[in-house]
């Protein structure tokens, strides 16, 4: 087993990886850019080393700096997390050159499966159905546009190098094609250092379902089942769950077999995800392979009981997969929401800044994969993902009830978060029935919203706005009236408010 692992990432995934290292007795070496010195992953790691200024191209994307730290700190392996260099074959190649083990697939498999167009070509060779579109990166904008025109709009522009909704645009007609192309390639360049795009037909209301696969270096490839990821905003997944509410045992078997076939054909090793679209008739179409750990890996962990990061490390160390497909017995249902620093009331614009206060949920069936803390300033330089809240339950219904409960306990002040969005989604009848598709959330968000949510209206008694109005008056009064001061330091003394409150309350109960 390894002695010390370099974690070539930041935020919640760096924390996730260092936790796995600690449980395995392996030392973790974190890296940090100038704005990340106080980040949670630096605080929790065994060791941490600076790698330059805030922009990722000068820090987290610098392979030379990472190799330098790995060498000096005495690391013997590198975990890339997701994003940044996780799907860049230059990193495993640099690791090999430096005598380090890369915790992920071999560079060749990454290229033959991970590059989106190459993956599509391979899928066709092994009879895995694909979404119609180009099999090569777009070279001439005009040609692509005329292909889009002939396939029929809407079409999707997608980054060859990417994932996570970056460098992706739906185009609804010729007029938008050019500007969408420019935006998407600019985003792709920023996110992955590669601006190449390709084109796909945009299917009507499909589910996004993906298969988690694992392959060891001894030829065994297994599927750990599917994740349903149809709830997306602007192609960015925001809720994921396992199992999918639409997948039958038979379809699960077929999709798992297709994923395993593809992985084998690509000489794949380690964790990977094969993404599919599933239409209303339960036909499935290959989309792409993500040659890395996914953001949403925890839902698979919660239903299988496996620790996917520890498995990745074991496989990279040459261990055999300790199980066959048949022995994986998923239990219950798991669902994840991605907590972002963004403002749902204002176009979901990013909301970096200082987290002034924070209460996090806990208790049965609740897991928080967190990358932030109270008092920390969320920087403007990276992805706005704060962390992930995951619930597990015996049934989809229990899981949703738990997630709602956990979201009610989660409060953040100082920055805006998308928590309110989830409280809204988790009571939508379509969602409760499992009837989502990849455009479902965008459509929901375009619908006008009633002034008060149903959850507020079925309450008798006082509403949150009553409480806010009274709190405002009390706050104001406490500014002048030092006898009733709420901000005084002897906060543990019963105040007059409190005493009166108790009396009045006992007097007034029905």
């Amino acid at each position, binding site marked *: 087993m390894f002695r010390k692992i370099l974690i070539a990432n930041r935020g919640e995934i760096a924390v996730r990886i260092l936790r796995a290292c600690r449980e395995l007795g392996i030392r973790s070496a974190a890296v940090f850019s100038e704005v990340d010195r106080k980040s949670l992953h630096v605080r929790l790691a065994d060791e941490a080393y600076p790698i330059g200024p805030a922009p990722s191209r000068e820090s987290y994307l610098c392979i030379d700096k990472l190799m330098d730290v790995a060498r000096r700190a005495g690391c013997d392996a590198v975990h890339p997390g997701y994003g940044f260099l996780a799907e860049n074959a230059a990193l495993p190649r640099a690791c090999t050159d430096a005598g380090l083990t890369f915790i992920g697939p071999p560079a060749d498999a990454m290229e033959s499966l991970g590059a989106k167009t190459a993956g599509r070509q391979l899928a066709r060779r092994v009879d895995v159905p694909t979404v119609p579109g180009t099999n090569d990166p777009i070279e001439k904008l005009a040609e692509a546009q005329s292909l889009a025109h002939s396939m029929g709009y809407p079409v999707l522009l997608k980054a060859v190098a990417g994932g996570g909704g970056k460098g992706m645009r739906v185009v609804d007609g010729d007029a938008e094609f050019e*500007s969408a192309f*420019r*935006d998407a390639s*600019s*985003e792709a360049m*920023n996110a992955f250092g590669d601006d190449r795009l390709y084109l796909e037909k945009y299917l009507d209301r499909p589910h996004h379902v993906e298969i988690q696969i694992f392959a060891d270096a001894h030829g065994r490839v297994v599927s750990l089942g599917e994740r349903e990821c149809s709830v997306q905003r602007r192609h960015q997944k925001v809720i994921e769950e396992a199992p999918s509410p639409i997948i039958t045992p038979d379809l699960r078997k077929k999709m798992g077999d297709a994923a395993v076939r593809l992985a084998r054909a690509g000489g794949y090793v380690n964790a990977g995800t094969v993404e599919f679209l599933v239409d209303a008739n339960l036909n499935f179409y290959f989309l792409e392979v993500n040659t890395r750990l996914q953001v949403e890996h925890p839902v698979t962990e919660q239903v299988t009981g496996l620790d996917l990061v520890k498995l990745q490390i074991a496989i990279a160390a040459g261990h055999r997969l300790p199980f066959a497909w048949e022995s994986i017995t998923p239990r219950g249902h798991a669902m994840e929401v991605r907590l972002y*620093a963004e*403002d749902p009331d*204002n*176009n979901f*614009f*990013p909301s*970096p800044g200082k987290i*002034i*206060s924070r209460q996090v949920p806990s208790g049965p069936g609740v897991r928080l994969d967190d990358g932030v803390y109270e008092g920390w300033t969320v920087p*403007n*330089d*990276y*992805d*706005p993902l704060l962390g992930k809240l995951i619930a597990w339950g015996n049934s989809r219904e229990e899981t949703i009830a738990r997630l709602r409960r956990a979201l*009610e306990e989660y*409060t953040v*002040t100082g920055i805006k978060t998308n928590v*309110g969005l989830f*409280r809204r989604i988790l009571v939508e009848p379509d969602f409760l029935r499992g009837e989502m598709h990849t455009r479902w959330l965008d459509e929901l968000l375009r619908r006008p919203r009633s*002034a*008060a949510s149903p959850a507020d209206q079925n309450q008798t*008694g*006082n509403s*949150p*706005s*009553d*409480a*806010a*109005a*009274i*709190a*405002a*008056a*009390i*706050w*104001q*009064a406490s500014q002048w009236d030092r006898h*009733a001061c*709420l*901000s005084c330091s002897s*906060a543990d003394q019963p*105040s*007059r*408010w*409190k*005493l*009166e*409150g*108790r*009396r*009045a*309350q006992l007097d*007034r*109960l029905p």
Partner: protein
Amino acid sequence: MRYEVQLASPSEQKNHVIELERDASGWRVMLDGRSVAVDAVEIAPHTISILLDGQSFEISVRPSPDAKLKLQTGTHEFTAEIIDPRAWSGRRHANVEAQGRQQIVAPMPGKVVRLLVKAGDHVEAGQGLLVVEAMKMQNEIRSPKSGIVERVLVREGQPVNAGEVLCMVA
């Protein structure tokens, strides 16, 4: 003490009259003429736990630069403006300038990566004006109204702070 509280949320605006009355041992609260049993304590700086007839609420209260209070309970957010009998400042009118010339400001710090309009262009409500990159996302800033772009105050590549004026639509 009688307070008029103008409470605004993203979806609606309501006015409340709150009477806080002191008696021998504390206070009595009337909300819009209805007597409410109130037990309020400070849980942490700027965080109040409040029991209204036994119902438990937790509210974060922060003064904002415009003298209003920002309140948050769960995901409900409110802005409160208080017309106080002893306050020196009178009623403010926040919505007076809702029509006419609009300043388009950056909603977050970032970098202007693309201008979609120039001075003199006619724009529709909802049309993109420019793209600001922040947190690795390209965010299109849209026009709140139909009209003419009067001025564009930024150029491509320029970093901007939250609240900085980007352009004006009249």
